[in-house]
């Protein structure tokens, strides 16, 4: 090959490298619906004003399981994306593998530790190092109720689960389905988690769902919990098999059912139909002596990459995500509340304001708990045992004692 040809080849090989000098960061996530994409655009636009490009890698489906798989293959082949949306224990787990970047300098400069609820830190730190920036906080233990049905039946917002079940039985006699839901294990898990924290207080939830204490798992309280779950099953119509959660929300909106136990992503269904909180529908926390706030967060973690431009983009992205203005804009569209506790909630709707206030109280009262069904309490191998047992109990006619036995054996088997 002549020298001229060789230098021509070398020159063409340099072209791709120069194209990246702008600073692009590839973000892997599983938000594909229109409202989620709109919310992401808030972050995207702010990042672009800092001079960096956002390269979108959306892998939707199976509640984020597909995106996790895509991440696994990228990491094992040594080509990680710049940032990834973490769910549950993923961030700390990848940090243990040593592939996640330490964001401590940024955290100290931005005062992250003070701005975030302390309970959140387990999921965004590994040891002392910050490894992810949380953008939002969903709450799992909401009850969404049709106002017309409640008012006509003379039902007030229940203060205890006993009240709620009694109200449900009254509605059933009138021929209205009290609770709308589907039979997917996570939908049943939402009710199970709520009972776990509401019936015997946050300490019991911590002992069972986080510490996996064998004595607490095998206690008479657990048997009574399953009894209560059985009573809730009596309030659900028999057609609930295979029903999607959004269809169940639709039943509450139409007045075919009275209430739904669902996280605050259900609020979007009401708002999309133009309904107003407290005017057309009620939103309240699952009833408890000490109202709990079961949180589900989305956070973005950065992976260690060799490219310096990507590293700078990562810093910019983390700053953008923790920016109070961005958090406000993002959450107004998404329907959750900001992860930061120091963002003003004036522009949010009444349900979000209620969530914000109850969160502040829960932090003080120690009832701010990670939602187990979404992976924020026990690790997946244990959380799935709870899900299996609750689901099997709910759809069949197992006795409460047998369910507790199955739970204890399942947890032991997974240790």
């Amino acid at each position, binding site marked *: 090959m002549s020298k001229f040809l060789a230098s021509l080849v070398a020159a063409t090989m340099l072209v791709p490298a120069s194209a990246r000098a702008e600073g692009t960061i590839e973000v892997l996530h599983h938000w594909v619906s229109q409202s989620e994409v709109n919310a992401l655009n808030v972050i995207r636009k702010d990042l672009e004003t800092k001079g960096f490009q956002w390269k979108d890698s959306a892998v939707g489906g199976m509640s984020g399981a597909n995106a996790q798989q895509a991440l696994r293959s990228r990491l094992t082949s040594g080509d990680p994306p710049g940032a990834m949306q973490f769910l549950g224990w993923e961030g700390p787990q990848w940090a243990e593998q040593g592939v996640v970047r330490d964001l401590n300098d940024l955290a100290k400069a931005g005062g992250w530790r003070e701005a975030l609820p302390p309970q959140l830190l387990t999921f965004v730190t590994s040891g002392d190092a910050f490894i992810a920036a949380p953008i939002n906080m969903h709450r799992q233990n909401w009850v969404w109720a049709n106002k017309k049905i409640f008012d006509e039946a003379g039902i007030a917002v229940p203060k205890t689960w006993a009240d709620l079940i009694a109200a449900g039985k009254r509605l059933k006699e009138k021929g209205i389905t009290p609770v709308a839901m589907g*039979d997917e294990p996570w939908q049943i898990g939402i009710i199970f988690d709520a009972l776990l924290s509401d019936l015997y207080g946050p300490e019991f939830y911590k002992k069972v769902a986080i510490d996996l204490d064998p004595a607490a798992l095998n206690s008479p309280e657990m048997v009574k919990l399953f009894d209560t779950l059985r009573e809730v099953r009596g309030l659900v119509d028999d*057609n609930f098999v295979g029903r999607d959660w959004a269809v169940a929300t639709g039943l509450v909106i139409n007045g075919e059912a009275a209430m739904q136990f669902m996280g605050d992503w259900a609020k979007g269904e009401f708002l999309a139909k133009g309904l107003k909180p407290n005017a057309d529908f009620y939103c309240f926390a699952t009833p408890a002596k000490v109202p709990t706030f079961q949180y589900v967060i989305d956070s973005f973690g950065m992976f260690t990459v060799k490219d310096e431009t990507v590293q700078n983009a990562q810093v910019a992205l983390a700053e953008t995500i923790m920016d109070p203005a961005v958090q406000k804009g993002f959450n107004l569209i998404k329907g959750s509340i900001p992860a930061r506790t120091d963002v003003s909630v004036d522009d949010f709707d009444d349900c979000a304001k209620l969530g914000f206030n109850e969160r502040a109280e829960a932090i003080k009262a120690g009832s701010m708990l990670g939602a187990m069904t979404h992976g924020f309490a026990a690790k997946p191998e244990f959380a*799935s045992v709870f899900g299996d047992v609750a689901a099997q109990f*709910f759809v*069949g006619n197992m006795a409460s004692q047998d369910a507790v036995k*199955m739970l204890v054996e399942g947890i032991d088997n997974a240790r």
Partner: protein
Amino acid sequence: MNAAKSFSSRLAGWLPRIVVAPSLLVVIVTVYLFILWTGVISFTSSKFVPVYDFVGLEQFVRLWATPRWHTAVANLFIFSALFLFLSTGIGLLMAILLDQNIRAEGFLRAVYLYPMALSFIVTGTAWKWIMNPGLGIQKVVNELGWTGFTFDWITDPNMAIYTVVIAGVWQSSGFAMAIFLAGLRGIDNSVIKAAQIEGAGLPLIYRQIIIPMLRPAMLSVIVLLSYIAIKSFDLVLALTNAGPGSATELPSTFMFSATFRRNQMGVGAASAVMMLMTVAAIIVPYLYSELRERNNG
């Protein structure tokens, strides 16, 4: 000239092997090497990512102590047996009926074969709606007047696996029918004529002569359908999502959820090894006996 001729004839002899070699290499690596890797993982304590230590049979012990696995294995036997038996039986019956030189044979053949063109996800979703008590068959029949009629198998943990059988058989019997039809067309008419001259009735001819002559077609059908039965993952996921509870869990869905959703890669690998051993224990003797007989007879 002699040397050139023997070289080109030697090359002609080697050519088939050279052509097949790349595909063979790919298959050996992607299938058998990774089967070996899965086997290795099943002896480690891998949870979230592969870890290469050695813990003996601990993952297998854990696997067999999981009640969901017992449900999955039982479901696999129920589903495979019913699926194979019904698909083969219905396929054979339809092939025999279609073979009677009827008028719209081409059209009917296409109609029966069409379900195979659907993805299992489509089949699962459609049948989920059809079998839902509030939306599908039960509702239609009740509204037609038979108000006491119930068909809520899909909501019953004990009966849900049979709904998976129904959807699977609907999809695959056309396929079995097509293979049997080809086999029937390949049977020499003179044998049938000879039997008719002897005075044998049609059912007897079919039972004693034609169906035994379909053994090679039967082998193809059974091998292909059992591969579909054991692989049934998308059908179960779309139809019942392994529910209600975990009533329609199959080893394939168990393996997927253990490895990718529950951070129990070692248990997932152990379940895959168990699946392989079960399949090998049944298919290998069957293949061996069928192929040995063909070579001898």
